Structures are given as structure tokens and as C-alpha cells.
């Protein structure tokens, strides 16, 4: 695969000290549109050769940030560096960065091969070399037998592979992907996200991928950057972001977290007790200093909540236990989601594996239950 060979060598090879090529550093990057702040002084380092997902709801600034890295939007303030070189004033076409646009933006009148060739043609490469590199790129993306088709004659997944081939044929060190799976149906999304991940592993270049889909981000990323209102809320590995949200926004955006508002009852080293409406929580390993009576939010992942049928007086229960009833049992195939309500009226969700058949004996609004979870599964959030 000579065309992409540059990237297929082992990681140790030809790598500058301190990491691989394709390291993007953002320092105080900001962008305003009229009176709205799209990106609010962001600092971020994207290590070379990593798969980073910018995750957030629409309007959070993730696409603007991507477009500034790609050179399609000018930053109002701050520096954008690629491998130590400031990019702000470098035109998009001269950055060592390619973009897979949302909806792919293929040239509708050009064949697959002509689409892939375009960037090489614009760079003035001789036809023979263009032809060779196009063939290799098409081979690499498994498109060789479609080379003479027009985009409209391709399926969504094939169009996406053409967009990838077109972006990769110029051998970038960073690939930007703007909602690349948004146009595909769900089954294809599941397949293509594995393909994207595999592709990034093979090429060893940086992928920066924008999405609003949490599951996609968790499945694909080395690092997830959670964004809201033009700011970064949290950066971490999928496990960190999923299990240990550090703020209310991340906890609620990642979904399936029970979020309860309460006040600190007692602090004992890193073990903290919190009173929420009608139940007591206990958390350990709390990283930040809390004071008694401080308002906090607690986040408890639905999958860590366990259930046992038992009728008890609410007051008898130890911390991290609560009496409740299921109001709705949502059967989702591999898991079952119990929508519960505590005696004091708080909604709580418990997710059980389908194979855990205990849920089968629970009657909606009838069976008395006790919900419980471990101290380690309670995340206390002050932001």
C-alpha cells in the first residue's frame, strides 16, 4: 500500500521526539459569530496518532472548532499549532490536514476515481503518478471495482469510503471528520465506526471526529472532548468520561445517569455523606474538598443500580439504599430498564442485564423494591 505507506510504518519509526506527527495544539482559541460566542478560548492538545472525538449537543462549538483546525474558519484569537508550526495563517489547502465533510460533499458529476484524483490534480502532480496513487487509494478503501461510478450510483457507506479515500490520498497527518456517520442507517453506523477505528489504527495519523452521539464517541475514541457552549467540559478516555463525569453537564449528556440534587451531611476524609430528598448517599474517593451543608449533585449510573424485591420502611435503610416501585419496565433486548419512583417521589432508573431474570417477577406499580448501589458508584459533582 505504497500510497499510504508513509503512515503504515511502525510507530517508533520516523517519529519526532515527544510523539507522533499529527499533534494538534490549541491555545486560547476563540471564535465569535456576531454576538454569539461559538468557541470560547479553548486549550487542548491532541496527541499525534490518536483518535479524538469532539462530543456535544448541536451548537456547542464542536464543528466550529473542527473547521478552524481545518482552515475553513478563521480563529478570532489564540493559536492553532500542528507539530509545533502555527497554522492560523496557512490556507486550508496548504495544511497537512484533510477533511471528510458532513454529507461527504462528493463532486456529483465526477466518477469515484475523478473525485479521489481531484486533490492530486490541484497539486499539479503528473497524470501517471496521480493514476497510481488513485488506484492505490481505491484499492486500500476497497473501491477498485466502483472507480467509474458516479456518487449517486453508490450506497451511503460506499460514498463515505469515497470521501475517506479522497481525503487520505493526499497523505495528511490529521484527518478531520464532521459527523461522518450521521447519514448512515444504524446498522451501517455500527459497522462503519469499527472500520473508522481500524483505519485510524492502520494509518497511525490523528483522527479528529465530531459527533453528538455519545455511544459513537465511547465506542471509537482514545480521548473524548465533551463540549458545551463553546467550552470544554471534560477531556478523558471513554471510561473516564463515562464512569467519572466531573461535572453536571457531562453526567447528564452521557445519558443513563441518575442525577440527584442534595446537600453534604458529613465529610470524613474522602468519604462523604449526602442527603437527597428522602435518601442518603455515601460516596468514597471524593477528589475535591467538600464542606458540610454544601449543595452538590450526585450522579449514579443506571447500570450500577441493583434491585431486590423487599418491602421495608424507608427510614430503616442504610445509605445508598432506597425503597421504590417500578413505574415502567422498558424491555430493550440485551438490557431491561426499570423506571422507578422512590417513596419520596424521586425518579431513578436501574438497568439490568436481560439475563438477570429477577426483573420478570416485578410488577409495575405493585412490587415493593429496594434499589441499592456501591459507594464507589456515586459521583459527587460541584460544577
Amino acid at each position: 500500500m505504497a500510497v499510504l505507506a508513509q503512515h503504515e510504518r511502525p510507530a517508533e519509526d520516523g517519529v519526532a521526539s515527544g510523539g507522533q506527527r499529527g499533534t494538534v495544539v490549541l491555545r486560547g482559541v476563540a471564535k465569535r459569530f456576531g454576538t454569539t460566542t461559538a468557541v470560547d478560548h479553548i486549550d487542548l492538545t491532541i496527541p499525534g496518532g490518536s483518535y479524538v472525538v469532539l462530543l456535544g449537543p448541536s451548537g456547542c462549538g464542536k464543528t466550529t472548532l473542527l473547521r478552524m483546525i481545518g482552515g475553513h474558519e478563521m480563529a478570532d484569537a489564540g493559536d492553532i499549532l500542528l507539530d509545533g508550526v502555527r497554522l492560523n495563517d496557512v490556507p486550508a489547502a496548504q495544511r497537512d490536514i484533510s477533511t471528510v465533510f458532513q454529507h461527504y460533499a462528493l463532486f456529483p458529476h465526477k466518477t469515484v476515481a475523478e473525485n479521489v484524483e481531484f486533490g492530486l490534480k490541484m497539486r499539479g502532480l503528473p497524470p501517471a503518478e496521480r493514476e497510481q496513487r488513485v488506484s492505490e487509494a481505491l484499492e486500500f478503501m476497497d473501491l477498485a471495482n466502483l472507480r467509474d461510478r458516479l456518487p449517486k450510483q453508490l450506497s451511503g457507506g460506499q460514498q463515505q469510503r469515497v470521501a475517506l479515500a479522497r481525503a487520505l490520498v493526499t497523505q495528511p497527518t490529521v484527518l478531520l471528520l464532521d459527523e461522518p456517520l450521521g447519514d448512515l442507517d444504524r446498522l451501517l453506523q455500527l459497522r462503519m465506526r469499527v472500520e473508522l477505528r481500524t483505519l485510524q489504527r492502520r494509518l497511525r495519523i490523528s483522527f479528529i471526529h465530531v459527533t453528538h452521539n455519545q455511544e459513537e464517541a465511547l465506542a471509537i475514541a482514545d480521548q473524548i472532548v465533551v463540549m458545551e457552549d463553546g467550552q470544554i467540559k471534560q477531556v478523558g478516555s471513554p471510561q473516564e468520561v463515562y464512569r467519572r463525569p466531573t461535572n453536571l453537564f457531562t453526567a447528564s449528556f452521557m445519558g443513563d445517569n441518575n442525577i440527584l440534587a442534595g446537600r453534604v451531611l458529613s465529610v470524613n476524609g474522602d468519604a462523604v455523606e449526602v442527603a437527597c430528598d428522602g435518601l442518603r448517599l455515601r460516596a468514597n474517593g471524593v477528589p475535591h474538598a467538600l464542606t458540610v451543608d454544601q449543595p452538590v449533585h450526585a450522579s449514579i449510573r443506571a447500570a450500577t443500580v441493583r434491585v431486590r424485591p423487599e418491602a421495608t420502611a424507608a427510614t430503616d435503610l442504610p445509605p445508598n439504599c432506597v425503597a421504590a416501585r417500578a413505574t415502567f419496565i422498558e424491555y430493550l433486548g440485551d438490557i431491561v430498564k426499570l423506571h422507578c419512583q422512590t417513596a419520596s417521589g424521586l425518579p431513578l432508573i436501574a438497568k439490568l442485564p436481560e439475563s438477570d431474570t429477577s426483573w420478570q417477577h416485578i410488577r409495575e406499580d405493585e412490587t415493593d423494591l429496594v434499589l441499592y448501589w456501591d459507594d464507589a458508584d456515586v459521583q459527587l459533582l460541584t460544577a
Partner: protein
Amino acid sequence: MSSYSLPEAAPVPAVGRRRLTANLSWALLLSLPLLWLLVFLFVPVLVVLVVSFFQPTLSGFEQSFTLDNYRLLLTSGPFFSTLANTVLSALITTVVTFLAGFWVAYYLALVVPNLRSRFALFIIALAPFFTSFLIRAIAWIPMMGREGVLNSALLSLGIISAPLDFLLFSNFAVRVAMAQLYMLFMISPIFFSLSTIDPAVLEAARDMGARWWNILWEILLPLARPGIVIGAVFVFVLSMGDFATVRLIGGGASTSVGLSIQNFVTFMQFPQAAAAAGILVLVTVLGVVLLLRWGSIGEDL
């Protein structure tokens, strides 16, 4: 065997009958325009064709077959130069409207940011059509005439020392006027072709290093081709058949086949008029066929 109990199914509609009704309603809907075309276009054209083979007399024609009308026209030098001038004017008008109209369409379709101002500007581009043709043609005379605004301005600025005569009553004037009159027929189809282009496609091209001329040549012109061809057909056909502009703006210094036909009719020389019309239609159709063939090279329209 397991048994299912499903809600009572609605009776299956008779697909065949429904299709028949659909066909019938389409036939009814289309019959009126078809009848219209038949009565007011095909039959008259057929009559003209038939008349073109009749023997002319002093005040009309007698119904005996002859090829003389065509032979006389095709061997007449003046008619040939009129025909050549008509084709040349039509070609120049088509090229000029394309060269000028493309940018207007480009600006409207791809530069104006929102749909509302786009259509507002499009309506403004339509403005010449709010007045009658006659007013627009007559308005040329005080503007372009010997004593007109343009000549006076150029004289007083010292750019010219004598009035320019070619500004009015000339082939030049006719071609400029026709280009202005028919510009919109070029702009509209190109505008609609360009409007279908996803701006992200242009951004992608720029991202890959395309300069503006690359984008024009590699993306915009190929994608606008259907619009360009349709616009060119409109303008070419309209200019080929024009006689009013030629008469008013050309003022005798310019000729066209359309004007000749009108003159034949004035002198009741109906078979000659019909033969000239037949030749005009033939040449026009030939031009249109060439345009369409050129326009769809490698294109799956």
C-alpha cells in the same frame, strides 16, 4: 401450525383499477394543453408548410405544387446574407447573454447568502419584463441616437469628436438590444442549475487546493451545463425568430429572416413568406440540435 389473531385487514385496493383511473386522469389533464398545441401550433405550421409549396400569384396563391419559392430564396444573394446575418446575430446574442448572464446567475445562486434576498434580487432582475417591449425599444432611441444621451456625454467629455452612428439603427445596436432583452432567459436556467449545488462541494474543492478558476472549470461549468444549454436554446431560438427588435432598433440598417417574412406578408406574398419561414425553422432546429448535442457530451441528462 400456530394461529395468529390479527386485526381485521382492510380490503386490498384494486391496484389495477386505481392505475387505470390515474392514467385516465392524466390523459384528461394533458388533453387540454395537447389540444391547444395541436390547434394553435401544429396545424398552423403544417398549413404554412403546405402553402410554401403553392404557386404565388399577385394577391395570394393558387393551389398548385411548385418548388420555385424555395429555389428563388435559396439562389438569392440578399436572402442568403439576411439568413447569415440572422444566424450571426443569434449566435452573438447567445454568447453575450451567456458571458454576462452566467455571473449574474452565479452571484444570485452562490454568493447571495439567504433564500429571501436571493429571490428578491431575482425579481429585480425580472424588472425589465414589467414594461412592454415597445417601451423598452423606444427608450433606446433617446439613449443611443445621434443626439442621444450617450453620444452627448461622450462628446462633452471629449472622448469622441463626432457622434457615433453605430449606436442606433445598426447590427451592433440590434445585437446589444437583443442581448438585453433575452438576458433573463439565460440567467434563469443557469440560476436554477447552480442553485442545486451544495456549497460544501465548493468548500471541499477549495480544501483540496482548487483556485477559483479550477472551481469554475472543474465544478461550476460542468454542473451548470444543463442550465447553460437550456438558456442557450431559449436565447438562440428567440433571437433567430426576432423581427420587432430588428425593425425598431435596426431601423433598416439591419435585417433578419423574421423581418423578411413580415415584409412578404405585408405584400401578400404568402408562399414566399411560408418558404422563408420553413427555411428559418429548419435552420433554427439545426442550431438547437447542435446545441443539445454539444451540451450533452458525456452527460446523462
